[in-house]
């Protein structure tokens, strides 16, 4: 391949778990190096280009002014921008509290005069246009591989439109819901290969809401199983959060 695809991997405020999945490619990194060139990756390289990039992966939540300024510049200097993981795509774990709660918690943790640089946690799509969302906390190597190979071969990427239950059934797991136990499988986007139910753990929704999921109806059922308070807590993890509610839409259709 004559011209390698220029790829950048950026991290905002987050745990950096999603970008580590690139390193978990191991030998495949060497194969990839034949077709793509990583020209900016702060975590792994000292010398980093400022663009332009064919594709930029952005991981994390914009929680500093630097973060916000940076993503706007990345958007301008990149052909495609991929939201890497739930923090980027859905506002993730920091997004489970409202801006009011955030301010109160910041004062509790840092002292009464503490001012947050960014009060409300939004997903990237609040600030910039996103071309593709990779969900998961963390994202899977399988999905990353699908996206990266799609970019190399110029394939049209199509996000998975089925819930975790489909993968869970294929693995012939016992259904936790049928045992009157909580499980968010029916409303959670697939892609994890039903990881949690396969090890006797309830699905807690870490791939975010599935496309077209009837969340309200499912919540009624969950209230019957675990009560209203716990149902609210379980939903306010990855399925919904204050910024998704405010914008009244799933940011990653």
């Amino acid at each position, binding site marked *: 391949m004559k011209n390698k695809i220029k790829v950048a991997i950026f*991290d*905002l*405020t*987050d*745990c*950096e*778990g*999603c970008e*580590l*999945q690139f*390193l*978990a490619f*191991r030998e495949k*990194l*060497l194969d990839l*190096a034949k077709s793509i060139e990583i020209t*900016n990756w*702060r*975590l*792994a*390289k*000292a010398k*980093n280009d*400022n*663009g332009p990039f064919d594709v930029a992966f952005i991981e994390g939540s*914009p*929680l*500093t002014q*630097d*973060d916000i300024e*940076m993503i706007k*510049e990345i958007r301008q*200097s990149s052909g495609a921008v991929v939201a890497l993981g739930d923090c980027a795509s859905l506002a*993730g*774990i*920091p997004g489970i*509290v409202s801006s009011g709660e*955030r301010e*109160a*918690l*910041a004062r*509790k*943790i*840092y*002292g009464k005069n503490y001012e*947050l*640089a*960014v009060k409300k946690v939004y997903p990237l799509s609040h600030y910039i246009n996103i071309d593709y969302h990779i969900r998961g*906390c*963390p994202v899977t190597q399988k999905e990353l591989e699908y996206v990266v190979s799609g970019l190399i071969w110029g394939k049209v990427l199509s996000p998975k439109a089925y819930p975790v239950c489909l993968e869970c059934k294929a693995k012939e797991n016992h259904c936790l819901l049928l045992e009157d136990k909580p499980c968010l499988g029916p409303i959670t986007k697939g892609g994890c290969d039903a*990881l*949690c139910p*396969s*090890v*006797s*753990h309830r699905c*807690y929704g*870490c791939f975010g809401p599935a496309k077209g999921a009837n969340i309200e109806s499912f919540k009624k059922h969950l209230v019957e199983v675990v009560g209203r308070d716990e149902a609210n*807590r379980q939903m306010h*993890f990855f399925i919904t959060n204050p910024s998704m509610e405010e914008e009244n839409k799933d940011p990653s259709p």
Partner: protein
Amino acid sequence: MKEILGHYITKIEGHGKLKVDFSKERAELHVDEGERLFEGLVLGRIYEDAPLISARICGVCPTAHTFAAIDALENALDIKVPEYIADYRRIMLSLQIFQSHVLHLFFLAAPDYLNIDSALDLAEKNPEVFQIVLDLKRLADEGIELIGGRSIHPVTPVVGGFTKLPDYRKLLLYRNRLEKNLVHAVEAAKLFAKFHYPHMEREREYLSLQDSSYPLIGEEVVSSAGKNFKVSDYQKNISEKVNSYSTAKFSTKDGKGFMVGSIARVNLKFQLLNKMALEIAKGQFPSNNPFKNNLAQAVEMVHFMEEIILLIDKVKGADVSASRINYEVKSGKGAGCIEAPRGLLFHYYELNSKGIIVNCDIITPTAQNLTSIEDDADELLKISHHLSRKEQERQIEMLIRAYDPCITCSVH
């Protein structure tokens, strides 16, 4: 973008900028990670959410946070798990240190000593070593996946045990692969014994856990200054201070900086290292040179591979169908502490009678090391006048990297 990006220190976990005042010989580590407020995010939530949420503090050491949270919650709920569950936890904690050290040693630190831009350049320059690195990375990731369900943000560990434990035969296969790779790991670790570490010595206090073997989990903190304390008293012994230039708090003990992590553990518990690790460490420790933290990590990488093999042999015959114990949910408070890859990791929770979290405190290893990092940087400035300012800055960045700081952990 250059303005913003150019200032962040590369090849460390998270966002930090180095500010050096050459006239005052003073260096500051400006921590610029946004506030995620984890100690607040868990409030009002059920105790079972704490391991799941706190794992997200860090993608490099999620398993450490998971078990620190579980340890604290079990102390709050007066739960004692059977020995084989504790042993499986030790395997996971050993795997966590192994996994994190492989990442830091080869992908983040080694380029400094080999004068290359990135570990990926090793593929061309030294393909044999690169293959060893990839094999070790695979082993570490797959070990955590085997027991925890996935290599990042594990799902099986819960209060009271594990939701499910793997078939022992799978564990045995894994054990044999580890044993086969041990000789390569020793070879790779020995590279770090040959590296040229900048010369600097500074006395300081080192802390690690007191454990029945080389430290992983325990109830007492041991100090090189002889000032030991109980984990439950950690808030009385370690103070945290907010600095205007940092979203991470800086810890001190008795008003001074101290150090936790690999070099602290090796310095304090040298005699408890496993055989092959001890061979590499001989004559190199105790050391007051913070750069040698990298060598201590290499020693520990080998030690914990040996330890995992010993532990897998130990859990043979345990009935893994009883992977968790029953317990009662009640009100209580409890502190927990484990040895994370970068050192002591404290979690503290208070629960009401329904098991809802009403108070939480987390002190991470990097937050504990920050004061010591800055003091070392100042010292390095004082002893490196003969170097150009650019070279001095490069050395300080290298020093910071040698500490293996986890900035995202330190802010949390």
